């Protein structure tokens, strides 16, 4: 690493000091990058010895915005250990709750966090859409920002209804769910859902879901944009117009390898169509060449992280979380381990899901120019399209089949091991659990931000967004908005950190070495 001569305080993830990124710049271009998680969390260590079901209560509290996602991963790991598949109605409720959390996160991230950078006055004061961007996305007051907070707040009511509690619901349990919503409550969920769909189509897409689904290629996308002013004025349309003029389609390539664990296990009897029993397919791809997913080749490398070293990278069923911050200073630089799939760095998140699900538009984008900030963020903005249809069907099916069971009795959790592998809003999330004598004997969590924001591995290979930063041109090192676009396109999140009210709070920052 070259000598650091300048440090810039960039709120890179607005996660209050728990993510720091250093980049080395030559001739205005980033030539190397280091991503550091700056806080040891060690949730796994605190799980050992607790009751077998405690992950259902503890892990949803790990993160304020992925509460249901952790709950889902935790319960699916226990489902595997008990060998009892939950009844169809429980699947419907679990999926609906997880989908609400994902949609809420996608839209908030896109408008409140990613497109907030379009309102960066110093960077975009001469951009032809700069004034419009500030009107829409200025933090705390932009028209789109306020609208998004209001609408996503309403959507969350669905979780409160079906979870029977908000926040910190633990309504998913081995064998199913603990809540059986009344017909009137399901009807209420439908009303909230349909109102949200109307807003999403009107404001985010600028067209119906059916019209959006007719887009199968880059040419179709361009034609869609030209087709009407409502398309251009929607958030997706504005994002396209603004991005085109700042070249986001050529920024932030990354490793060009993708991972998705697949998501939303389908009920046995449903009219929702999926692949291999899930709505979203599991897989790994190099470019757009998709291979079947094999969970046995996931490993965690600790060579550059502040954890006790092992002879080789270990599978999460064998891995440990033992902090060790002494020695090797300079080589170790993060509290995040380096997850690898078959020894390789991968990107995970909405773009990975689109590629692995075989979405023709996103496959063409990646074939054409490789992954980019543009493709990644567009995938996030339109991912709800893939969810809304299934949500509508499952709400209807719940009304029809409300008299069927929501829970199969499960007694003591037997000894065994299980993995809950799902897609969080930010990508692949896994809980690997071993139970012995009705106690947790082992718990490992790999979050999406660990995949995307990993440090180097023992071969010196960079993590996904470290790699994506390389080659980025920075016009003004005092306002490196381009680097912000790259990292934020992965939706970095370490929200499970300190966040108390304080004067002169520390922000996550980007350090630039020149």
């Amino acid at each position, binding site marked *: 690493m070259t000598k650091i001569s300048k440090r810039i305080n960039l709120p890179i993830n607005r996660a209050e000091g728990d993510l720091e990124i250093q980049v080395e710049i030559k001739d205005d271009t980033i030539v190397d990058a280091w991503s550091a998680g700056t806080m040891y969390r060690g949730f796994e260590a605190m799980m050992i010895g607790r009751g077998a079901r405690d992950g259902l209560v503890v892990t949803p509290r790990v993160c304020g915005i992925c509460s249901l996602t952790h709950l889902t991963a935790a319960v699916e790991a226990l489902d595997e250990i008990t060998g009892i598949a939950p009844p169809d109605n429980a699947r419907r409720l679990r999926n609906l709750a997880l989908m609400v959390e994902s949609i809420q996160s996608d839209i908030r991230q896109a408008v409140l966090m990613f497109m907030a950078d379009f309102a960066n006055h110093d960077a975009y004061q001469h951009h032809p859409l700069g004034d419009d961007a500030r009107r829409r996305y200025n933090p705390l007051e932009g028209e789109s920002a*306020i609208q998004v907070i209001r609408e996503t707040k309403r959507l969350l009511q669905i979780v409160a209804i079906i979870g029977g509690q908000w926040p910190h619901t633990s309504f998913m349990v081995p064998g199913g769910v603990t809540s059986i919503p009344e017909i009137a409550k399901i009807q209420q969920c439908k009303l909230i859902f349909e109102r949200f769909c109307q807003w999403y189509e009107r404001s985010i897409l600028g067209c119906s879901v059916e019209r959006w689904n007719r887009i199968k290629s880059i040419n179709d996308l361009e034609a869609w944009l030209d087709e009407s002013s409502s398309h251009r004025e929607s958030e997706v349309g504005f994002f396209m117009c603004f991005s085109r003029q700042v070249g986001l389609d050529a920024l932030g390539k990354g490793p060009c390898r993708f991972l998705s664990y697949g998501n939303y296990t389908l009920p046995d009897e449903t009219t929702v169509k999926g692949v291999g029993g899930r709505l979203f397919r599991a897989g790994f791809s190099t470019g757009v060449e998709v291979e079947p997913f094999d969970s046995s080749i996931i490993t965690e490398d600790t060579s550059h992280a502040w954890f006790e070293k092992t002879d080789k990278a270990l599978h999460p069923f064998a891995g440990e979380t033992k902090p060790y911050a002494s020695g090797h200073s300079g080589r170790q630089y993060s509290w995040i381990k380096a997850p690898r799939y078959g020894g390789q760095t991968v990107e995970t998140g909405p773009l990975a899901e689109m590629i692995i699900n075989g979405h023709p538009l996103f496959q063409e984008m990646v074939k054409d120019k490789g992954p980019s900030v543009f493709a990644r963020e567009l995938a996030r903005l339109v991912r709800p399209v893939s969810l809304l249809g299934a949500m509508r069907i499952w709400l209807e099916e719940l009304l029809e089949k409300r008299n069927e069971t929501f829970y199969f009795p499960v007694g003591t959790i037997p000894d065994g091991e299980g993995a809950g592998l799902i897609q969080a809003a930010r990508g692949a999330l896994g809980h690997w659990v071993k139970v012995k004598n009705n106690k947790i004997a082992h718990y490992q969590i790999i979050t999406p931000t660990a995949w995307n924001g990993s440090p180097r591995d023992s071969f010196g290979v960079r993590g996904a967004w470290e790699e994506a930063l390389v080659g980025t041109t920075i016009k003004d090192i005092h306002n490196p908005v381009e680097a912000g676009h790259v990292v934020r396109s992965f939706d970095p999140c370490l929200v499970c950190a300190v*966040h108390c009210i304080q004067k002169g709070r520390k922000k996550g920052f980007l350090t630039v070495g020149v």
Partner: protein
Amino acid sequence: MKRCIICIGNRFIADDSAGLAVYDKLCEMQPFGAEIDLVEGGVSGLNLLSFLENGGRVVFVDAVRRMADPGEVVVLSAKDIVSTLSQDHFGHEAGVPYLLSVLPKVCEGELPEEILLVGIEGGYTLQTIETAADLSLTLALKGMKDLA
């Protein structure tokens, strides 16, 4: 009048767990003798907005930094809380200052008549938590004016 105490923070980060230690203490102290909604707000950020649309009085309890001497308990008004907003950009972690800044623009119910925050500075003892719990209850019942 509706009254609500929302304890926030992260149980798994010692520096940020004071609000939830108060929550646990308040749970032990129930029933309160008057109707007060007690909420474990955790790190729910923007998702706490729905608790701020029912009018009445809302008292947050949280750890604070650089607001007082270590071990002290302070009371902040809504204005004090919003004044701590020093970022121009926010993320998934958006906290109470962000929440209160956008509240008037997104509230679809009734805005609270009074919003206060009981802050615990630095490391805490059982005594500090008890003091903060008692103060939260008093503020929820009487508000700042009557306290003075």
